[in-house]
């Protein structure tokens, strides 16, 4: 059975039994682009698909969807289709108590890697796309199987052997401070403050974003270069030890700002300092806990 058929069968079963109120998955829109889909009716499971253009991180929708109601009653469970990278985001959100484990039914898909720019092309369902370039995050990705899932779709596969090198990151680290400053100012200068990066990010789930408050004394909503840089550096910092590297922020950026470099650099830094990789287990990150006996002191 193809992945698409398996996902549809599972979604139908879940919706008909009433275990979940909604299945968050992927569908192909009228122009052939793959996009997120919210299926609440068992009759509509035929819309769900799986292909190599399923780039969106659907866990972004979970914190909002599963937020408790006005009189604190817990939200009804939902099911979500995840790839390996998205499943790590679920672990981080669980560690941060955004929802409980029984509120989400995880349909894990063994991911063959997502094609570069594929969400804007018509991709045949389940069709193998030999020769098409994978996204940079997938060339770097050492995992194919979700770390958390209630049902797994696809056969277990060995992790890929050839992992792409972090060329750009090591090039930037090799520059001197003036060159790096010039590089980043040039990148941040293009920012429109459209907040697409924030909206696409599963970890950016504050009800009111610190960077979008109009009464803040020390963070501006302005579009000056300093404010834009403070926004990007501040956002990257808030993701330190939490970012799972799905690189959705970079994909949705209309100005092609290489935001993922900042996130990857911080992930490496946190791993080097604390031996912690975000999302491998539902435990809080090292930046929100006290110093442990095993950890080094500055």
């Amino acid at each position, binding site marked *: 059975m193809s992945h698409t058929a398996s996902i549809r069968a599972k979604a139908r079963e879940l919706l008909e039994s009433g275990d979940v109120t909604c299945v968050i998955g992927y569908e192909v829109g009228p122009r052939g682009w793959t996009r997120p889909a919210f299926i609440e009716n068992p009759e509509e499971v035929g819309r769900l698909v799986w292909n190599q253009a399923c780039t969106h991180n659907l866990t972004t929708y979970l914190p909002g969807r599963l937020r408790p109601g006005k009189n604190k009653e817990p939200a009804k469970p939902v099911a979500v289709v995840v790839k390996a990278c998205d499943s790590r985001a679920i672990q981080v959100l669980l560690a941060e108590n955004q929802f409980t484990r029984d509120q989400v039914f995880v349909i894990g898909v063994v991911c063959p890697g997502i094609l570069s720019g594929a969400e804007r092309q018509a991709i045949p369902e389940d069709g193998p796309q030999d020769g098409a370039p994978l996204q940079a995050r997938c060339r770097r990705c050492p995992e194919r199987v979700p770390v958390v899932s209630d049902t797994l779709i696809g056969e277990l596969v060995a992790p890929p052997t050839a992992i792409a090198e972090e060329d750009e990151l090591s090039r*930037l*680290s090799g520059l001197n*401070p*003036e*060159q*790096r*400053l*010039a*590089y*980043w*100012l040039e990148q941040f200068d293009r920012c429109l403050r459209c907040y697409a990066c924030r909206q696409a990010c599963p970890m950016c789930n504050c009800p009111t974003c*610190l960077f979008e408050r109009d009464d803040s004394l*020390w*963070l501006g909503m302005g579009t*000056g*270069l*300093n*404010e834009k*840089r*403070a926004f990007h*550096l*501040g956002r*990257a*910092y808030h993701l*330190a*030890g939490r970012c799972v590297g799905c690189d959705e922020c970079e994909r949705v950026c209309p100005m092609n700002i290489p935001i993922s470099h*900042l996130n990857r*650099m*911080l992930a490496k*830094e*946190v791993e080097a*300092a*604390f031996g912690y990789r975000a999302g491998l287990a539902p435990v809080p990150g*090292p*930046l*929100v*806990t*006290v*110093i442990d006996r095993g950890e080094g*002191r*500055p």
Partner: protein
Amino acid sequence: MTASPGPSAAGLAAFEPKILGFLCTWCSYTGADLAGTARLHYPSNLRAVRVPCSGRVAPELILRAFDQGADGVLVLGCHIGECHYDNGNHRTAKRVPVLKALLSFAGLEPERLRLDWVSASEGERFARLVGEFTEALRLLGPCTWRASAPPLPASLTWVGIPPGADPAPGGAV
């Protein structure tokens, strides 16, 4: 006393770094007080901000300080295990090095941000740290972090009311 008395004695150029210091009220601020009562000299480049705990120093505050033209930021808290709030400085100890790595990646010299521990009885240590930090920043020179705004186009620049023009067009008073 090991603190440098000032730039004139060191014979350095006229550059005086602007340093923003976040001092924990329970230890470092009291330590600075002790340095004062003990009449220790330390450079006046430090602008002290008294905070309830070094854990209060949000990374956005440090970013803001550099954006506003600080040449260096000094965060001083209690030694690990001596925090008034038990573990506020644990968080500082973990967060500031990560922030330093981020700022360094974005093009700031990492020496411009410094985290250290000063207890209430260490007035001498406080004076020495401030002296060392000021010296290090003098050698680094002015900070180039702050991006200057591009000049406004001529169409948006206020040139004043041309002579002879109606000062209140449209008849408004």
